[in-house]
């Protein structure tokens, strides 16, 4: 769906990290956490392509969404200059989201830097669907990592949702000193095998997370972020290599599209 949204706010949370709330004219139903949108960042031809952005939060059952983004180049810089009231052209919701078991009791979330973006929507949905009244019985552990404390976002929001938050920074400026997957490795035990794991972040982090999940036999879903042009499965730019053993809808190819086959994948599928 092509949507003309209106920016309700666009504010800097931490240097270079922004949260944007976009309101829709008509309610967009059935947005699934893990899905993304393609944003047009301007009317000129430079930058040319839309930018894929994970949905950070679903606002009031689809009256809008929030996205969380990091300024890394010209496109995201232009987004950061957008103001309340501006119109914004987007395609979405796109792709396949996280699969959440009804009455899920335990979830581990592993996020690196801006990889926390889709996790907020996920946690809210787990709370809605999880075990007990309003998912109160669902235990959620969030491991969040970054280079410095500035890369650690949404901690209060996460705690507000009742999650246990474990923080790692590479420079030690907040929480555990080191990479988040080392913290995860130290914290996880055989007892955690009843958890489901969800992860989003840099490739190296996702790979380590997958290794840990495999070792403890924990099912793990990962959300991938790749450069793409169309977002709808036409250009075949955003492909990732998948295990040939896994059943694939595009059996002619060792590749799957992040946009239409993902962005959420079963971690064991991916060839790193």
């Amino acid at each position, binding site marked *: 769906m092509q949507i003309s949204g209106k920016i309700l706010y666009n504010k800097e949370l931490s240097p270079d990290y922004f949260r944007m709330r976009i309101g829709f004219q008509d309610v967009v139903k059935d947005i699934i956490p893990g899905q993304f949108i393609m944003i047009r960042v301007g009317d000129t031809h430079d930058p040319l392509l839309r930018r894929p952005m994970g949905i950070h939060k679903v606002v009031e059952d689809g009256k809008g969404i929030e996205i969380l983004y990091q300024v890394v180049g010209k496109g995201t810089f232009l987004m950061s200059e957008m103001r309340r009231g501006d119109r914004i052209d987007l395609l979405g919701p796109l792709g396949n989201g996280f699969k959440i078991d009804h009455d899920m009791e335990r979830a581990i979330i592993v996020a690196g830097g801006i990889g926390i973006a889709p996790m907020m929507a996920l946690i809210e949905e787990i709370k809605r669907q999880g075990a007990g009244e309003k998912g109160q019985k669902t235990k959620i552990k969030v491991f969040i990592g970054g280079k410095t404390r500035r890369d650690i976002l949404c901690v209060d929001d996460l705690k507000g949702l009742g999650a246990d938050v474990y923080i790692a920074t590479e420079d030690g400026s907040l929480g555990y000193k080191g990479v988040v997957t080392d913290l995860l490795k130290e914290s996880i035990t055989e007892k955690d095998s009843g958890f489901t794991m969800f992860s989003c972040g840099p490739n190296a982090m996702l790979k380590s997370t997958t290794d840990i999940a495999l070792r403890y036999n924990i099912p793990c879903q990962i959300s991938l972020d790749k450069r793409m042009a169309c977002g709808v499965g036409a250009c075949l730019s*955003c492909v990732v290599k998948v295990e040939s053993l896994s059943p694939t809808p595009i059996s002619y190819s060792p590749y799957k599209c992040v946009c239409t086959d993902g962005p959420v994948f079963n971690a064991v599928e991916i060839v790193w």
Partner: protein
Amino acid sequence: MNNPDLSVNIGGIEFKNPVLTASGTFGYGEEYSDYVDLNRLGGIVVKGLSLEPYEGNPPPRIVETPAGMLNSIGLQNIGLNAFITEKMPFLRRYDTRVIVNFFGMTIKQYSEFATKISDVDGVAGLEMNISCPNLDKGGMIFGVDPRLTYKVASAVRKATTLPLIVKLSPNVTDITVIARAAADAGADAVSLINTLLGMAIDIDSRRPKLANITGGLSGPAIRPVALRIVWEAAKTVDLPVIGIGGIMTANDAIEFMIAGAHAVQVGTASFVDPDASIKIVDGIEKYCRDKDLTGVEELVGSLRT
């Protein structure tokens, strides 16, 4: 107020309007059907097909450049059989012309493909890709040598009675030589340009930004080059020309038609705005009306020099 006639005839194919979606940028139509009323398109040129499924190049396959993008997809496709059984039934439901873009590694593969697709119901014509810069074998090799262009186009001509469009590469010194070779071989039309061979480097890692090292440049950045090449080809060969290259708006499309194109293909613009091709149809119609033209064909090759 007059109602301008937007239809064009290219090599025996009657298109309701001169706007087609370019191969590789619109999948098999299905991908964009939620965003675009496919019935309003002059035609859909499907993603390049080969006899057998083809896996394409390793990622990363794309990099954005100023007002453009480089791709090195490498013609990943589902193969002819899957296209016929899985994609054609969908495409047949629409009132638009389906042009099948195809490629091979050898002349034999090209002609075999042409033979096999000829009986498929709903295929209006073929676009033969001899210009993809992302293949080691086949692809562009045929399109940069006039003798090979003639040879492969002749073989395909013998293999099918379907209208045959030959898609040409801009990565040549003189397009007119190649265009003539295609015409001599019996092509019904030529389409151009395919992407311009390009490259981008990450200066921190000193690695190419594409795994394939080089890729094809598309988007508005290439439009003036494309326009010049279309103009050169159109005044040289006595065949209809389909103009391609960075067309984003109706004004861009009209420029190509004035330069000599009978129709245009919209490619990268669909990524930016899925509905771009429809806006171009509407814009061309409005232009014809404003300029009091009876039909869009009046525009073709009307350049005043």
